[in-house]
């Protein structure tokens, strides 16, 4: 058993180590651009995904404008839109479907998944399991740059003839099999970003299994690490199926094969000129393959954040997480069930009713582990001494919106109800409640919680709280009315609702939603302002600003190359808050029994000494 390491000891180590590692000086390129350091990769994922968040949000506001004021020119930026797709600044149907497609694709593949697993996976895993870096640092670098390349390929679609991919983010054939160059670029981008996911997932699984600090058993890992670990398994097993589906779609597009092209299909697309499809393919086959990945993908997008929210809630309620093992088994159950429910996206595609019923039942069963998690979170905050930090408010916001999103999910799990609300705004409301209200709030919670560790600066709490309130209020005002539109039969992905008489009474709702969406969109700029301000002028973060227990708070803020100043050893589970026998209300994992942590101030001066 190695001797426990006190902070004062490590102070000495820093100086001796300093000269020794002098020759490791990295150039600008290896340090900031092609870095293999997991923290730099996490920062790269975070900043590029936040940039894509701006793009995806802008696309959403453009299409919201068209829905609220069909046929009116887009103010301010309308004149800059190309004449072909937006004559006199009015969004044409062709552009509109590109906007919906690219909004969803960007948000799912380039914002939520990279933030949920790219940012938190890279940031949390090595720090929380007490190791120096990922198991395969070079694969990590490759994973980020594949993602970045995919982002460029996807965005390039807007600048080619015919515009970007325009068959919805689901890319159903035959429409997606006869697209132009933009559609092909979309397929290539999805393939590349999928490959990036697989490499990332493989790295996370290996790191968690192989690089845990001495003393850390699997059931000593924080829930964030558990959630990301299980998510990685989903990515590794699910994403390749999407890759094989889009490979076939790529063949259909480029080589004019007929994997997904049925017999006797008449195509009016300008791109179909001279295409001679042999036919005989199965369009619905693509839907099966696509949802075999994309249903687990919605859990890829939410499970890591469930872990993050658990850690945040436990820390700021100053209470152990309620039902630690139940939480882990619930995540496992959700992940497993995620693979056997994909058919519920296809109740309308033509399916044996018996099979539909099977999918319906397996889908409804997911409510059980989800409810276990929600009740455990409530049990965690119940009678806790709750600190209303921004991170905690975001986490509470996550629970509130996730409950609404989860309940509307049970509606569409039920086949008879789903047949009525299929492809309406009810679905749009549901996915935004789980992906924006769930995932993005969880991501914000994680960003506010770990920003001090990642960048060494404390984000502004006052502006953080303003960001939360504006986002939470206008999020609900934007997306809750969509339930009403959906039940009224308002279809998704339609260019102009006013062409349908029965949708005309909903026009005031559409206008209201758009105005709220614009405010929601602009209130996200608070976060960007906060990050930029903090980065330059923010106060330095102490080593453990939240008095949390997990290992990342043992490393200096920001952690140096190699993360910890001395090897760490784990002595207890991650959620030992408010133990009655202790003076402090927390008991960190790295403290040996009987050892006392030296105050934060020494740590701050220590980080300064290293420069």
């Amino acid at each position, binding site marked *: 058993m190695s001797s426990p390491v006190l902070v004062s000891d490590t102070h000495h*180590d*820093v100086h001796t*180590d*300093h000269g020794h*590692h002098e020759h*490791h*000086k*990295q150039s600008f390129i290896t340090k900031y651009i092609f870095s293999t350091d997991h923290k730099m990769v996490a920062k790269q994922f975070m900043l590029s995904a936040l940039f894509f968040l701006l793009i995806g949000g802008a696309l959403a506001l453009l299409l919201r404008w068209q829905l609220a004021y069909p046929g009116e020119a887009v103010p301010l930026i309308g004149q800059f839109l190309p004449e072909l797709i937006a004559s006199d600044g009015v969004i044409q149907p062709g552009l509109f479907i590109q906007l919906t497609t690219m909004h969803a694709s960007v948000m799912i593949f380039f914002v939520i998944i990279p933030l949920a697993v790219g940012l938190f996976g890279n940031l949390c895993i090595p720090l929380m399991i007490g*190791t*120096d870096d990922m*198991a*395969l640092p070079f694969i990590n670098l490759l994973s980020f740059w594949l993602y970045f390349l995919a982002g460029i390929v996807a965005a390039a679609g807007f600048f080619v003839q015919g515009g970007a991919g325009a068959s919805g983010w689901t890319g159903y054939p035959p429409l997606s099999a006869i697209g132009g160059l933009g559609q092909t670029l979309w397929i290539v981008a999805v393939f590349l970003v999928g490959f990036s996911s*697989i490499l990332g*997932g*493989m*790295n996370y*699984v*290996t790191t968690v*299994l*192989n*690089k*845990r*600090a*001495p003393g850390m058993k699997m059931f000593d890992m924080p829930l964030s690490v558990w959630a990301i670990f299980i998510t990685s398994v989903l990515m*590794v*097993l*699910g*994403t*390749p*199926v999407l*890759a*094989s*589906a889009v*490979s*076939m779609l790529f*063949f259909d597009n480029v*080589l*004019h*094969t*007929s*994997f997904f092209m049925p017999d006797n299909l008449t195509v009016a697309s300008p791109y179909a000129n001279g295409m*001679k*499809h*042999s036919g*005989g*393919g*199965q369009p619905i*086959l693509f839907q*099966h*393959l696509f949802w*075999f990945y994309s249903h687990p993908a919605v859990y890829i997008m939410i499970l890591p954040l469930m872990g993050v929210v658990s850690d945040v809630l436990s820390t700021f309620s100053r209470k152990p997480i309620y039902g630690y093992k139940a939480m882990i088994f619930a995540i496992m159950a959700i992940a497993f069930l995620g693979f056997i429910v994909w058919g519920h996206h296809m109740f309308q595609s033509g399916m044996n009713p018996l099979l539909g019923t099977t999918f319906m039942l397996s889908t409804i069963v997911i409510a059980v582990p989800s409810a276990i998690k929600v009740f455990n979170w409530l049990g965690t905050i119940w009678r806790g001494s709750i600190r209303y930090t921004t991170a905690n408010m975001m986490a509470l916001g996550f629970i509130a919106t996730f409950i609404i999103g989860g309940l509307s999910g049970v509606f569409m799990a039920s086949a008879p109800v789903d047949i009525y609300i299929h492809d309406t705004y009810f679905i749009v409301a549901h996915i935004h409640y789980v992906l924006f209200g769930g995932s993005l709030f969880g991501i914000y919670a994680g960003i506010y919680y770990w920003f001090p560790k990642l960048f060494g600066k404390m984000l502004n709490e006052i502006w953080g709280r303003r960001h939360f309130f504006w986002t939470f209020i206008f999020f609900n005002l934007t997306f809750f009315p969509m339930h009403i539109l959906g039940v009224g039969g308002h279809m998704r992905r339609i260019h102009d609702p006013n062409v349908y008489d029965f949708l005309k009474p909903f026009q005031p709702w559409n206008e209201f939603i758009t105005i709220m969406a614009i405010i929601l969109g602009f209130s996200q700029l608070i976060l960007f302002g906060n990050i930029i301000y903090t980065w330059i002028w923010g106060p330095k973060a102490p080593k453990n600003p939240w008095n949390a227990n997990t290992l990342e708070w043992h490393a200096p803020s920001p952690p*140096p*190359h*190699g*993360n*910890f*100043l*001395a*090897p760490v050893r784990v002595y207890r589970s991650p959620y030992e808050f408010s133990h009655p026998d202790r003076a402090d209300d927390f008991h960190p994992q790295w403290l040996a029994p009987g050892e006392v942590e030296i105050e934060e101030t020494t740590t701050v001066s220590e980080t300064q000494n*290293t420069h």
Partner: protein
Amino acid sequence: MSGLVLDHEPVSGIPHGKLAMWVFLASEIMFFTGFFASFIVLRNANIDLFTNSAQALNKWLALLNTIVLIGSSLTMALSVLAIEKGNKRNFQLYMTITILCAFTFLIVKYFEYTSKFSHHIYPWTDLFYSYYFLTTGFHGMHVIGGIIPMVWMLMRSFTKKGYHNHVRVEVLGLYWHFVDLVWIFLFPVLYLMFPTSYVPPIH
């Protein structure tokens, strides 16, 4: 920069690269599972087309390729054994044979492809050939992806420093056996699947 390099043994007892390769192979299995699942669906919907078109494939060339590839798996395993024992000469010998087998496989495949093209059979000709070119194409890319590190390791072993990273050779071996295994599934699926009652058309 104070760098801490934690060099303790892998917790699971399996080297990082090897564990990651197993995870990656699980992913690869799912990738080809997508294709094989599609095969079941597409073939059942077009049973006549699939049985007829499959007859035009040269199953003897494919059998040759199967033998070549299984042989290369054997020599790959022997070269892993050789490098673990530090037998440099045997490692070089077996690795060279493996590379030659891999190239033989690709050359035979090249002749199969060109003979199809010369008969005006292309990926878009019919669904069976779409599937044939798709799966053999992806498999061929996996073969190339195996050849590159093999050649690199072999060339390194001829340098003065030599090549001693036996874990990497073993990891590459795992990958190579997987590539072999995919072919063992593709061979019967593409070349040998027709009903026993099938009577070949008289030309």
